[in-house]
């Protein structure tokens, strides 16, 4: 399709504008984190600029604790929800089976549950089961909410899966396990990786579920929230900014992997599909 230069410029301008608005609050957070004072008006004089809060954030053992809890929750959640999501995406989009239609509807349900209530409900439930809440109960809570999302993301990819490839493999005597390992997983890999990214992102930023299910293992957003609503210090936005910096590195790495795997799978598809 012809895209004229003006159209492309228009779209680029629009995208730039959206990004600018999107990053405006991040800019504001940076402003807040560099202020020596907790209360300030903008613009503040240069002598009020300090990196003290960053130093505090980096050296605080508490912040280290929270980051480690959030990371643990994020990693476990991502692994669990992508594994479960992979299979349920196949059940959702790929296989024809009896309960499929119902399954498709029900998969979405956890998303339609207010998260804070889900968190409370899980807390009551864990209590009923006599389970002490800690970071791993939070990982369960996150997985309950994130697994439907990973299912949807992988499903979209699974819909695009060329069935004949699996059939061809079966034709050549591959077992179901071999087909899964050699054909299905490599072809769905881009979807799985973006699902992993989403899972980590959503788990990392999640507040409502963590609030009720982490027990004594506070996750970073809980601390940030508590510190924001009572006992605000510019260290709070400083942690936020450090978060962004860390995220930029991580996201670059993750999306690098996505790109690489997409190219690989495209090559695989081309080789297998022959066009």
């Amino acid at each position: 399709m012809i895209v004229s230069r003006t159209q492309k410029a228009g779209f680029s301008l629009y995208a730039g504008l959206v990004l600018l608005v999107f990053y405006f609050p991040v800019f504001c957070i940076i402003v807040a984190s560099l202020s020596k004072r907790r209360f300030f008006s903008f613009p503040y004089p240069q002598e009020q600029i300090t990196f003290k809060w960053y130093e505090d954030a980096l050296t605080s053992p508490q912040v280290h604790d929270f980051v480690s809890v959030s990371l643990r929750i994020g990693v476990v959640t991502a692994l669990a929800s992508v594994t479960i999501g992979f299979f349920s995406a196949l059940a959702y989009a790929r296989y024809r089976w009896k309960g499929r239609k119902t399954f498709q509807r029900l998969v979405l349900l956890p998303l339609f549950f207010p998260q804070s209530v889900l968190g409370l409900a899980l807390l009551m439930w864990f209590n009923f089961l006599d389970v002490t809440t800690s970071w791993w109960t939070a990982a369960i809570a996150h997985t309950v909410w994130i697994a439907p999302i990973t299912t949807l993301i992988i499903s979209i990819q699974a819909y695009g899966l060329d069935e004949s490839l699996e059939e061809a493999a079966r034709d050549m005597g591959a077992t179901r396990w071999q087909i899964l390992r050699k054909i299905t997983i490599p072809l769905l890999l881009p979807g799985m990786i973006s699902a992993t990214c989403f899972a980590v992102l959503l788990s990392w930023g999640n507040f409502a579920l963590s609030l009720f299910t982490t027990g004594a293992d506070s996750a970073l957003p809980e601390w940030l929230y508590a510190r924001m609503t009572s006992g605000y210090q510019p260290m709070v936005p400083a942690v936020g900014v450090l978060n962004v910096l860390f995220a930029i590195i991580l996201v670059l790495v993750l999306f690098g992997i996505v790109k690489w795997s997409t190219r690989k799978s495209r090559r695989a598809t081309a080789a297998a599909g022959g066009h």
Partner: protein
Amino acid sequence: MKTTHNFSRRDFMKLAGAAAAGLAFSSVPNLAWAAGRDKELNILCWEGYNSDNVLNPFRKMHKGLSLKAESGTDDPSMINKLRAGEIKVWDLINLNQCWARQQMWGEGLIKPISMERFMPYIEKMMPMFYNKEMGINPFALSPDGKELIGMMQRFGPMNFVVNTKKISVDMAEDQGLPMFLDPKMKGKYGLLAWDNWNVMHMCITAGFSPYKEHTPEEVEKFKQTAQTLFANAAMISGDPAQLNQALINGEIDAIYSGGIYTCSVARFEGFNEVHHISPRRGPLEGGKGSLQWFELTSVVNNPDVSPLAEDFLEYVQRPDICHTVAMAEASHNPVTQMSQPEVFNKFKKDELNSFHWDTLEDQMNRSVDYQVVPDNDLLTSIYNEAKRTREG
């Protein structure tokens, strides 16, 4: 040792039972707990005790200690955490005076601490918390007066905050909370939505004490007051920092429901115009018009409580730590130990100024203790209704 042994056995039984029920995995973490909690301490507290400057020295004293502190923003939800089963998680809980005695003790959520061990510290506290006539402040004791249920440390009055560039202290102290009903205040104040404080202050604003059962007329008056206050507020926020910021920037002239606890940081940063007001008179006991709180840190009735729980309580009595607690990173407050010269001398002038030390005694004298409101449920639901149906 005996307890550890007991719990191992109990956990083994639990594991066996749960495995039989097909829920084996739910018990795995309990097994982990049984390994002993002498390297662990979990504190549920108001902002301050979870500051690094308070916790770090304790961490240094106990190598390898996993010390976690979580802050809440209201007493009831912290209690609810215990009610919902986190009693097995926390070792210490730090709340305002009334909750330990009036709720947690009765529900078996906390346990007594050693009178013997802590009496020497209590005896050195300010007269308000210990004196010969009264003995220990009753809020720190069980209703029968026999058990010590927590340690007192931070305290302060809590009423409202004004910007003295806009509203004079004298006028505010004179008029008290009803000042906010003045039509001239419309759109000039922010409401700090700490619900249980608001409910009490709205009672006082309406002209009666919150600490009694209310007549239908009073309830109706309360409703109107709440509606007016919500309708006229320029902003409502649960975040004191946001309100202080608005006060300093001139967006609002006063904050409804606020204390030294919420405004001291702004004062410490040099914004002396931020001023906490304790009204001179009001409908409270003895014609007083101001409320005060102090915090009680209690040991949670955790079946496997950390042996370090009482150690921590003792640790925060150290003069240098008293000063650190008072000047915690995010909120500055007077502490009960300031009657001791070795504590008091640690405070610098601007630190004292941040929590109104010069007028503090006066302010406290005008105040009565924070208690549980008998018909709080009814008033809270009216309060929420008023917030929901807010006009303006």
